[in-house]
């Protein structure tokens, strides 16, 4: 009895987790002209069409740019920040931790609106710059958190040992700390990349004429054209995310860090 219940719960969970994904794959593989499930016949024409839509190509490049460089920028700030929070007793470090986590907790809509109203408009940022800063800020909490947990497991006396062997503090960091938190940094990068790439609410506020991230572009596309290419594109993006996480898991046991 309990066994049956377990299977039912497991089945339902998987259905809700994977079901939409399967629907999207097949909805995109439709031979028909409009988005529907079950699809009207099977074909790969919509998957092919995705690559011919110019706005998708542009917004994909922008999303890629934001995901890669926004995350790199977040790591550039986040790794030293995590290091300082872990190694030194700073006044108000709890407050700093809370502030750093804020972009995760505060709803994206509010972050987007706030950034738009108080940063982008008064400072006259270009759309790309605004998006870059926003994505960096959104990814920063993940960078700090994931790198922190790596640093936490790294004993401080290892750096002292390096210093006594002749390292400067900076060399101790690059030669001993960094190689040992490499996995955490990579995990933070992947998590940040995926977070940034899939970001909607903040990007929604900050996107401008002709400059959109891919998810926003897909929204806009759907408002005008209700064909299965959006489903096809969604499926492709989901596969891309899966491939990245899968590769990361195989390479360095990604799930240990998240």
């Amino acid at each position, binding site marked *: 009895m309990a066994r049956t219940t377990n299977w039912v719960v497991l089945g339902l969970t998987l259905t809700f987790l994977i079901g939409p994904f399967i629907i999207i794959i097949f909805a995109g593989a439709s031979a028909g002209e409009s988005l529907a499930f079950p699809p009207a016949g099977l074909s790969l024409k919509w998957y092919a069409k995705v690559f011919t839509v110019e706005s998708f190509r542009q917004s994909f490049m922008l999303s890629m740019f934001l995901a890669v460089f926004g995350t790199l920028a977040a790591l550039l700030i986040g790794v030293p920040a995590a290091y300082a929070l872990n190694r030194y007793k700073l006044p108000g470090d709890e407050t700093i931790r809370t502030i750093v986590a804020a972009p995760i907790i505060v709803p994206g809509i509010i972050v987007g609106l706030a950034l738009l109203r108080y940063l982008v408009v008064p400072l006259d940022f270009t759309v790309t710059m605004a998006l870059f800063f926003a994505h960096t800020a959104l990814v920063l909490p993940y960078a700090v958190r994931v790198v922190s947990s790596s640093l936490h497991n790294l004993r401080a006396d290892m750096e*002292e*040992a390096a210093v006594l062997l*002749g390292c400067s503090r900076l060399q101790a960091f690059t030669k001993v700390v960094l190689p*040992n938190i490499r996995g955490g940094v990579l995990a933070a990068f992947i998590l940040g990349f995926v977070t940034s790439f899939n970001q909607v609410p903040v990007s929604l506020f900050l996107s401008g004429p002709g400059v959109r991230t891919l998810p926003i572009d897909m929204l806009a596309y759907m408002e005008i054209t209700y064909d299965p290419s959006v489903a096809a594109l969604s499926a492709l993006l989901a596969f891309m995310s899966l491939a990245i996480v899968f590769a990361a898991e195989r390479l360095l046991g990604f799930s240990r860090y998240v």
Partner: protein
Amino acid sequence: MSDAFVSLSDLTLSYGQTVAVPDLDLDIAEGELIALLGPSGCGKTTTMRAIAGLLTPTSGKIVIDGRDVTRTPANQRGIGLVFQSYALFPHLSAFENVAFGLRLKKLPEREIRAKTEAGLDTVGLAGFEKRKPAELSGGQQQRLALARSLVMEPKVLLLDEPLSNLDARLRLEMRTELQRVQKDTGVTMVFVTHDQSEALALADRIVLMKDGRIEQLGTPDELYARPATVFAADFMGFENIFSVNGMELVSETGRLPLGFEADCPKIAWRPAGVTVGEGPHSGKVVASSFAGDHREYVLETPLGQIKADAPIEIAEVPAGAVVSFDLPQSTSRALAA
């Protein structure tokens, strides 16, 4: 002392507002093996960290080999430290761990290779070059940490609780190893320990510390046989310590006549110094346990509980029985307060 190789003078060490070591003076000769001994919080580790340069003194002076290094950064002092946790670099092989410091010195590759191999050989780790620290046993990790420090040819080698993480057999092995290394290289060694038996077995001189001050300084023989204070006596295994009042021993629970005249505030006996089976006093056996070459008793006496070790030849006195005992002058140790 003019021949001091390491000289700490008026050294005050603090963490923020907390003074861990007030005003310490200590001279160490070249090639000496010194133990900083004491319970946790006595300032022994703090003192070691100050010698290494990991802690800047609040005041005072550290001179090593004729050079004032008080303000010299840790990475330029030429001092080795074997950490209690070994602090090996987990991402590097055994070879690269040992070569780490040599590479920073930018020595030619040939020299790095030769020195590293010699270093690994010295500690019996030849053939383990490619292993990562995690693939080595605890004892091997420690010897790797030792080799990593030794190849740098440090002026002073510091060791933090070098034997505490090892089991009994390895401990003996490592002790012999450390003595051999010290003899072969002639390096001045300072090690920190809370275990008096380690200090007694290994050190040329022992610095017994309490509350950041030197309680007593001497050779193992001196400290073992002639502790000067109650604290030192307690640390050296004089477990029966009483106050003296004229011709009487006094404790919180009662008094006992002393069979001789003692002109000191406190007096102490080791368990082995208490005579069991004969003597003017009597006590009830509370506990008795077999310890191989002797038997350990706990006696209930007017002074409270007394620990007494009896030779194995004396027939066992069962718990609950009353036995006579003596606190002879010959095995007593007069103490300052």
